[in-house]
């Protein structure tokens, strides 16, 4: 499978190359998803545009309100970042759950999002943290919620003319608790059968701003909003966990595939949410 290959050294150059070679082309970052797609003949590109050398897409930056992660930051860099370990430990923890050390040394956080797999592990925690993303086209920049970024399996709002420039994560308030759990047959390398990020703000025993984000149970990583509003009504007893878990199960829209049946996935949403809530409230 032959293809042409160009290297871009700036966002503008990358966008110009993408416009010039718009037919069957792709941006190449870590390549850990893209190379497999090409080899499995699920994608036959005419042109790849390497964006790895673009400085503006690198780095982790700290501000008062949020942390900015450049899309080219590798999963290893996220796992090892002291800034993230201190401020948003769920992100290094999630990165470490993914793939293998060798894949994490290549694979990027931006690639995980732009590949737009319903099972993308970085998506549920980042959505539960209310992250924004900055997209850039030749017409300019726009900021949208990460929640609105995904459009279907393998599809995002990025069309031929846009590039993901930044992931902005608001710093969690004091009293914010969160966890991300995945259900897999094998811990390493495996893709989640289902996964869930659960987060909330606990103030004087009350629960606010609950977030329940499910992976691999719908065409896109999805918020279970009914379950979230039920969790906001937490009454100090564990009885509500079952209600919340059943609501999340009923909101999920899984399919049958090689990793699990529709029925199994629905049931496991309930189990995983109950388990996760038990851990968070312990």
């Amino acid at each position: 499978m032959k293809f042409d290959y160009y290297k871009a050294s700036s966002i503008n150059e990358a966008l110009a190359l993408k416009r010039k070679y718009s037919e069957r082309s792709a941006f190449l970052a870590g390549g850990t998803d893209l190379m497999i797609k090409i080899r499995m003949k699920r994608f036959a590109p005419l042109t790849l545009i390497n964006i790895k050398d673009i400085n503006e897409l690198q780095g982790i930056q700290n501000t008062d309100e949020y942390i900015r992660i450049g899309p080219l930051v590798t999963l290893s860099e996220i796992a090892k970042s002291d800034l993230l370990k201190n401020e948003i430990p769920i992100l290094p923890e999630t990165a470490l759950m993914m793939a293998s050390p060798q894949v994490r040394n290549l694979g990027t956080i931006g690639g995980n999002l732009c590949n737009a797999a319903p099972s993308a592990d970085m998506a549920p925690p980042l959505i539960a943290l209310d992250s924004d993303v900055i997209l850039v086209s030749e017409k300019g920049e726009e900021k949208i919620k990460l929640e609105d970024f995904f459009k279907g399996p393998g599809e995002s709002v990025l069309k031929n003319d846009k590039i993901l420039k930044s992931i902005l994560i608001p710093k969690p308030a004091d009293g914010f608790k969160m966890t991300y759990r995945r259900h897999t047959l094998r811990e390493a390398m495996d893709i989640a059968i289902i996964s869930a990020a659960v987060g909330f703000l606990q103030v004087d025993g009350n629960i606010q701003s609950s977030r329940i984000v499910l992976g691999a149970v719908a065409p896109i990583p999805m918020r279970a909003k009914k379950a979230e509003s039920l969790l906001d009504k937490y009454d100090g007893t564990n009885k509500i966990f079952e209600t919340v878990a059943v609501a999340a199960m009923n909101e999920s829209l899984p399919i049958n595939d090689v990793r699990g049946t529709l029925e199994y996935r629905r049931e496991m949403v309930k189990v995983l949410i109950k388990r996760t809530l038990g851990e968070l409230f312990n």
Partner: protein
Amino acid sequence: MKIPINLNINGDPYELYVETHLSLLDVLRDVVGLTGTNRGCNQGDCGACTVLFNGKAVNSCLLLAADADGGEIVTIEGLDREGKLNPIQQTFIDEGAVQCGYCSPGMIMQAISFLEENPEPTEIQVKEAIEGNLCRCTGYKKIVNAIMKASEILRNSK
């Protein structure tokens, strides 16, 4: 499409003119002739093709040779010094960690990268470190022993 690339492989400079669709693994094995790096699954699952790229362990099947342009690569062939095996290679032999041998180069390259960052690992950490390396002989126990023993030798030699 062919492009010129420069690679430093095991300390030697290579000026190559390669097809852009070739992986680093393809180039190492079929162009340069270093066949110690093995091709297992060719999709990043098995770790048999692990090499060090700019000091980090990566699956060479997932990296285009074009992307590696300007980089430093270390393969299993580049580990011995003055005819003496690297301590990790030696402990793999001493502990009987090599059965069919197919996974060994990848295991050893991953172990080198891991021990550099974690000179005093626990057994659990060693097991996690080789989560991306499959041994179809399932001789994991001896591989873990070999890496633990190598960490000891490396610590004592410093």
